[in-house]
């Protein structure tokens, strides 16, 4: 793919440099910890050091006697109407919703569960105070593994639930059992998708500011979903939603960690209410490791019935999802997304899936980049290689015989989705060509001559994005819709303000949205300002997650721009004394067809609409339009990633020597930003494949609580990547866009593991679990060769 020339402004499809950048490279970004309010105090949470324990006493006297400490609040003294709320109740799942109080009442159920909040003049003093809070605990038995938790006799996380079952999802097509029984062969595979932690470089943090006289509360918080937070503050803190304002400052990464509503956000609001001054809390990194949601943690047992060509005639998945100790905003829905995507990009008509969700003595899991879909993709892509291995077939060919074909779209999957569009063979062909798949044997031979194992691995993926049609979110028990809002406002001077319900935290919406405005309305890129993440400005916004911002929020913007353009047309016709049918749109003005001298620019029309002195009958002043866009369907980006590795037998290190990604996310607004999303996504998938794992000891202790133990890849740990794209527009929206935020993460881990398994296949290795850290691989090699 030719490098696209980068420029400082432009419209749809151009690699426009970001207008966000200047504040960030000069240090003028304003993240939540950069804000200070008059009279502001600082909070530190006292957290459970035990995975499970009964609280028998809390003594706050010594802490409260410390100069500089203002208050220590516990469950007994922190006002709250209710605990943290979960918005996910999958129908038919028997989902259980344990109470999750803001501060533990009489029992703690994971290391890091908050027990008390210390408020002091500064964070050093608050930390000193926290060290002086004495909590008496009676430790209780713990269970941290989902399968173990669901076994008979397991310690109970919640004594009221005698089996630790959190929810069970079951889906089976008619005739499944017969189809499996009739298969020529069966291939079985157990896959562990280990627990990982999102680890945005900015931890969470917030400032609660409760105004005593009016009851108005403002929360400045590092979030992806300001409006959810606002609505939930009204429930949890017991106040009118209309009195709550949530302001999102610059957000230093989210990856799903900030697609949530957390105890701390409510607690600082309540603490501010009690103390009468603003209260700030900034999460430490080691606190982030235990207090912010984790991702994945799913164990899968696949059984595939296949014919001799490798075609899957029936597929069964028995899976265990570790939900953690409580349900956060969407916990039970995450593995529901896995269920939807179990068949991947393959035409598998007979399917049976049981997803057993368990409570354990661990931090709750929830959405981490990909959210349920990486689990599905990793599993099915490992299974494809296992089938190829079992039948002695080429991994690419097994995928081809199973692919959904271009003529089958729109395609109704056996899990109830309708895939919008796709051309899986083309991305596979292109990826194999770019990666020189055909020349791999020679490279392997060269590596072997140097005493190194070389392997190549594929991941052909499809993801469900553009969350979500509101009727679907309701049908799957998510207590929130999936539409998105936009407002376009033209000022008297012709400049534009876009208010968007999306909530960027690195994705560059101000740039991409400005490009859309330039193309669709003719207002230059540099004349557009984009406002997001402040509930005072927006009617409502659902936020940024699930690769939805462009496919839902961008389309909402596109539709508002169309409304403004059509209103401007009526005003132009009036000013030019002609019929609207006599006018044509030039890209930036309405002109009488064939008469360039009889035209009004969008800026002139914005001024005229504001002046309102010569408006057509029945047309209101001002060029402004609002859209709430509810998508008719999801979007389904897809692609092929190819990874090539070398493994050093002496160290067990898996070195990626070549990584090629061919993605298809439909039409592209800004190819530079899309490439950036793919780069970052791949490296998060690589992190899971090679380095990252959130580990609990048998006693429930977190063994990876800092970035020393939890290995986020550095520049020295990752390879350069080769990217390319095909373009298959989505028919589900007028822009033909799909979404790209999660593709890299969804695709990468399987490509890397498949390459490593391939590298060691000559030793008889058939499967490797993640993360493939050197010690694990070295041990595998030792076992295989001894």
């Amino acid at each position, binding site marked *: 793919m030719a490098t696209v020339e980068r420029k400082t402004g432009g419209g749809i499809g151009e690699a426009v440099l*970001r207008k966000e950048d200047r504040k960030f490279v000069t*240090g003028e970004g304003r993240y939540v910890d950069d804000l200070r309010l008059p009279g502001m105090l600082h909070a530190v949470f006292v957290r459970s050091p035990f995975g499970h324990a009964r609280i028998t006493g809390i003594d706050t006297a010594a802490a409260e006697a410390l100069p500089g400490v203002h208050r220590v609040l516990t469950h007994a003294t922190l006002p709250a109407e209710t605990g943290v709320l979960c918005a996910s109740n999958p129908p038919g799942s028997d989902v259980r919703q344990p109470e999750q109080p803001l501060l533990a009442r009489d029992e703690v159920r994971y290391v890091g569960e908050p027990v008390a909040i210390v408020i002091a003049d500064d964070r050093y003093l608050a930390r000193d105070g926290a060290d002086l809070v004495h909590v008496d605990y009676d430790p209780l038995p713990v269970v941290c593994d989902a399968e173990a938790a669901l076994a008979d006799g397991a310690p109970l996380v919640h004594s009221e639930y005698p089996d630790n079952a959190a929810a069970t999802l079951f889906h089976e097509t008619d005739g499944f059992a017969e189809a499996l029984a009739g298969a020529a062969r069966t291939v079985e595979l157990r896959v562990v998708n280990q627990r990982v932690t999102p680890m*945005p470089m900015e931890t969470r943090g917030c400032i609660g500011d409760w105004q005593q006289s009016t009851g108005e509360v403002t929360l400045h918080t590092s979030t992806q979903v300001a409006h959810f937070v606002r609505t939930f503050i009204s429930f949890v803190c017991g106040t009118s939603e209309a009195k709550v304002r949530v302001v999102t400052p610059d957000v230093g990464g989210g990856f799903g960690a900030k697609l949530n509503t957390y105890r701390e956000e409510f607690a600082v609001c309540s603490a501010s209410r009690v103390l009468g001054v603003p209260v700030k809390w900034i999460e430490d990194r080691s606190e982030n490791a235990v207090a912010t949601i984790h991702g994945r943690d799913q164990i899968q047992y696949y059984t595939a019935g296949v014919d001799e060509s490798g075609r899957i005639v029936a597929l069964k998945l028995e899976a265990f999802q570790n939900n953690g100790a409580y349900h956060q905003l969407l916990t039970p829905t995450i593995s529901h997304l896995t269920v939807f995507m179990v068949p991947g990009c393959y035409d598998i008509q007979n399917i049976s899936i049981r997803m057993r969700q368990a409570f354990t003595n661990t931090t709750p899991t929830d959405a981490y980049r990909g959210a349920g879909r990486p689990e599905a993709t990793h599993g099915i892509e490992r299974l494809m290689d296992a089938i190829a291995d079992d039948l002695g077939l080429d991994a690419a060919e097994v995928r081809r015989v199973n692919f959904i074909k271009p003529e089958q779209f729109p395609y109704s999957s056996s899990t109830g989705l309708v895939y919008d569009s796709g051309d899986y063979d083309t991305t596979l062909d292109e990826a194999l060509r770019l990666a020189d798949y055909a020349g791999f044997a020679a490279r392997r031979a060269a590596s072997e001559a140097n005493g190194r194992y070389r392997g190549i691995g594929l991941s052909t993926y499809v993801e469900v994005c553009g969350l979500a049609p509101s009727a679907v979110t309701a049908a799957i028990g998510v207590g929130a819709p999936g539409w998105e809002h936009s407002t376009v406002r033209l000022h008297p001077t012709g400049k534009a303000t876009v208010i968007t319900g999306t909530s960027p935290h690195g994705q560059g919406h101000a740039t991409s949205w400005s490009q859309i405005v330039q193309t669709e309305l003719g207002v230059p890129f540099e004349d557009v300002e984009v406002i997001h993440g402040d509930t005072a400005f927006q009617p409502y916004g659902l936020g940024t997650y699930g690769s939805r911002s462009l496919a839902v929020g961008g389309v909402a913007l596109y539709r508002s721009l169309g409304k403004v353009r059509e209103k401007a047309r009526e005003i132009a016709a009036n000013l030019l004394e002609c019929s609207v049918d006599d006018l044509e749109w030039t890209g930036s003005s309405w002109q009488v067809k064939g008469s360039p001298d009889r035209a009004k620019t969008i800026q002139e029309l914005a001024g005229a609409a504001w002046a309102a002195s010569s408006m057509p009958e029945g047309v209101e002043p001002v060029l402004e339009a609002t859209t709430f866009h509810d998508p008719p369907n999801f979007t389904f980006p897809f692609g092929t990633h190819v990874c090539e590795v070398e493994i050093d037998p002496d160290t067990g290190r898996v070195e990626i020597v070549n990584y090629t990604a061919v993605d298809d996310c439909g039409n592209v607004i800004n190819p530079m930003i899309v490439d950036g999303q793919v780069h970052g996504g791949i490296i998060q998938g690589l992190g899971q494949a090679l380095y990252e794992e959130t580990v609990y000891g048998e006693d429930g202790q977190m063994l990876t609580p800092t970035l*020393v133990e939890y290995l986020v890849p550095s*520049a*020295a740990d990752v390879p350069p990547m080769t990217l390319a794209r095909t373009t298959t527009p989505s028919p589900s929206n007028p822009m033909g866009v799909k979404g790209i935020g999660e593709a890299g993460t969804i695709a990468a881990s399987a490509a890397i593991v498949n390459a490593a398994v391939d590298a060691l296949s000559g030793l008889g290795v058939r499967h490797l679990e993640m993360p493939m850290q050197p010690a694990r691989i070295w041990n595998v090699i030792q076992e295989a060769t001894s």
Partner: protein
Amino acid sequence: MGQTITVTVNGTAHTAEVDPRTLLVHFLREQLTLTGTHIGCDTSTCGCCTVHLDGEPVLSCSVLAVQADGCAVRTVEGLAEGGELHPIQQAFHENHGLQCGFCTPGMMMTGLGVIEQNPNAADEEIREALEGNLCRCTGYQNIVAAVRSAADQMARS
């Protein structure tokens, strides 16, 4: 209790009283309100808080403010001059070397240190030199390109 220190930050001398346990990063952020230097961890692992202390990149979370007494500190706020971006800033912009921007100040300060110590560093050497600075957004490809580009630009000027 307090200890009086004088630190020259971005060319301006600041004399202030600090609690001896105050970290340099908190002195910069909270006493001098230079909030461009960020805190991303508590184990000296992430590199977000990197500043230059007497010309050397250091983690300002691992230096006490009192240790910087009499020293010169350069932060991200001291890179641009007269409204003109420093080549490292311009290169991060032009190469899409940032997304959320949180690691960016520390990444640029380390990158600048690399260039000053080894103007002809190969990409592999740049990657090794950036090992102490974590970024969760970009996958580093464009960061490496940005440092490479800034090195080339600075060599030309």
